[in-house]
């Protein structure tokens, strides 16, 4: 089954470290031009999966094709056409920003003239032109991340792998990065993103899988997953310490589902305001209440019984 539009196809993909199975037989198909996400908490197996797709980590079992080729046998040819942004920046801290791009471009067999031009373009893209000839080491986290992304684009990859692109960045730096990634997507680059932020997954991904404990527990578009696994709205109620539990029985029959978190109750319903009014008539007196739309966080909670970020 050779389909030119399928860039990554995994069937029963497994990664073991000794006795420990980090990836437990996942099936994934990523098509050309889409932005595909792996959403899951720390330890879900996202990075292990990404490293197998990046052809830097051999798979333990299962089938894997990347750009139609076998990573075990054609790793260098596949890597020539990939861009990789690892979870941890691995820039050459003692070189300048520009040198990082030029040196890296050479590993992809680009000529000196090509890497010079490409570096100039990418510096502009990453908004680092001002810092081009500064050493990398003192740059901010956001700048380093943008440089790592710029570096991953030096070979004009067909498929870009981003492992937690914005983890650890402040909100402003995250929005700037999302903007850059959105432009890449518009220009036709296929993206694979891992994240444990549901807002990032909703922002960037056309389609995603929810991963937990090395397994895929759901798959679909952000909106589709929410429609399938959660209610339209969520009513969040907070109570004075130690009064929360007593209120749970009063709410159960009002909603599709009630989740008890340590600091609040989540009431899943299609009409939050009306549930709040009914609860109020029953004498439920929360210290605060909030009606919001369901998010992927709720989907994750529903599927695994745990929160994404703890």
């Amino acid at each position, binding site marked *: 089954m050779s389909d030119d539009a399928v860039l990554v196809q995994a069937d029963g993909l497994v990664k073991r470290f000794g006795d420990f199975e980090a990836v437990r037989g996942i099936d994934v198909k990523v098509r050309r031009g889409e932005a595909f996400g792996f959403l899951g908490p720390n330890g879900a197996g996202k990075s292990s999966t990404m490293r197998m797709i990046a052809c830097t980590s051999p798979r333990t079992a299962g089938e894997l094709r990347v750009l139609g080729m076998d990573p075990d046998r054609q790793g*260098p040819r596949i890597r*020539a056409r*990939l861009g990789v942004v690892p979870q*941890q920046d691995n820039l*050459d801290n003692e070189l300048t920003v520009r040198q990082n791009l*030029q*040196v890296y471009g050479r590993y992809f*067999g680009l000529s000196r003239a090509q890497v010079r031009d490409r570096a100039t373009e990418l510096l502009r893209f990453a908004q680092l032109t001002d810092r081009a000839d500064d050493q990398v080491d003192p740059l901010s986290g956001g700048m380093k991340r943008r440089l790592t992304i710029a570096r991953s684009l030096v*070979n*004009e990859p067909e498929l870009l792998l981003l492992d937690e692109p914005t983890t650890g960045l402040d909100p402003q730096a995250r929005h700037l990065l999302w903007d850059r990634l959105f432009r890449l997507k518009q220009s036709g680059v296929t993206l694979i993103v891992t994240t444990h932020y549901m807002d990032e997954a909703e922002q960037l991904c056309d389609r995603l899988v929810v991963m937990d404990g090395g397994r895929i527990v759901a798959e679909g578009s952000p909106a589709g997953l929410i429609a399938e696994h959660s209610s339209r709205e969520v009513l969040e109620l907070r109570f004075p310490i130690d009064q929360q539990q007593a209120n749970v029985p009063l709410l159960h029959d009002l909603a599709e589902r009630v989740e008890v978190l340590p600091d609040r109750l989540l009431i899943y319903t299609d009409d939050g305001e009306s549930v709040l009014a009914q609860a109020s008539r029953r004498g439920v007196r929360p210290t605060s209440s909030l009606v919001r739309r369901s998010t992927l966080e709720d989907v994750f909670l529903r599927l695994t019984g745990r929160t994404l970020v703890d």
Partner: protein
Amino acid sequence: MAATGRTVHPVAAIGFVLEGLWTWYRRNWRSTAVSSFLTPLMFLTAMGFGLGSQIRPGPATDNLPYVVYLAPAVLVGLAVQVSTGESSFPVLGSFKWDQRYYAITATPVTVDQLLAAQVVWVALRVFVSGLAYVLVAALFGAFVNAGALLAVPISMLAGLAFGTWVVALAATVNDEGNAFGNAFRFVVVPMTLFAGTYYPISQLPAWSRPLAWVTPLWHGNELARAAEFGGMSLLTAAGHVAYLLVLVAGGVLTARWRFHVRLKV
């Protein structure tokens, strides 16, 4: 949209990695220049000209002035020292601190090509610092014969015979590099004191000589002196070279195994 990246011939790939190392070196050479160039000259001045002025030429110095007897061995010692330096922290750091090796092997460059480039880089560094030392020391009269130039590649071989094992060690350890301090204290320093650098090992008790024989330094010293002063049969020379080559091969294969274990997790 087609990517512009491509795979290249392995030799070209090794060249690109060397280019990256050179880019780094161009910015940072000053810190290594002192240790790899001035240190051996200071050494030669102090031990050869200074202390050596009190040592009469005799059978133990091949009837040569002490500084002339010492100069080729200092070259080999320099090679081992530079090779150890370039193979220890820079390699460990490329795995552990800036993780440069992980960045490189995410490109078409393979683990084997990366290791080859790293070893060639060490060899080049040893060769160039050795050559500079020989030329300058010759100006001071410490080298008396053009055969000293042949001693440079010999010292490089001896340097690699030790350095490749240090590369393997650096690819294995995951601490802050304490193992290198121990390698230096318990291997390099005793080797320098007892493997025929300052005096022939025939001056040592017979039981201890086999300890010198296993070191690359002793074989390098024997060869480097023979290159300048002659007096060694071709067969003996071939034996020394063969032993050093076996050490290099063993070091490279061990390093290769460790590189694969560490980079292809």
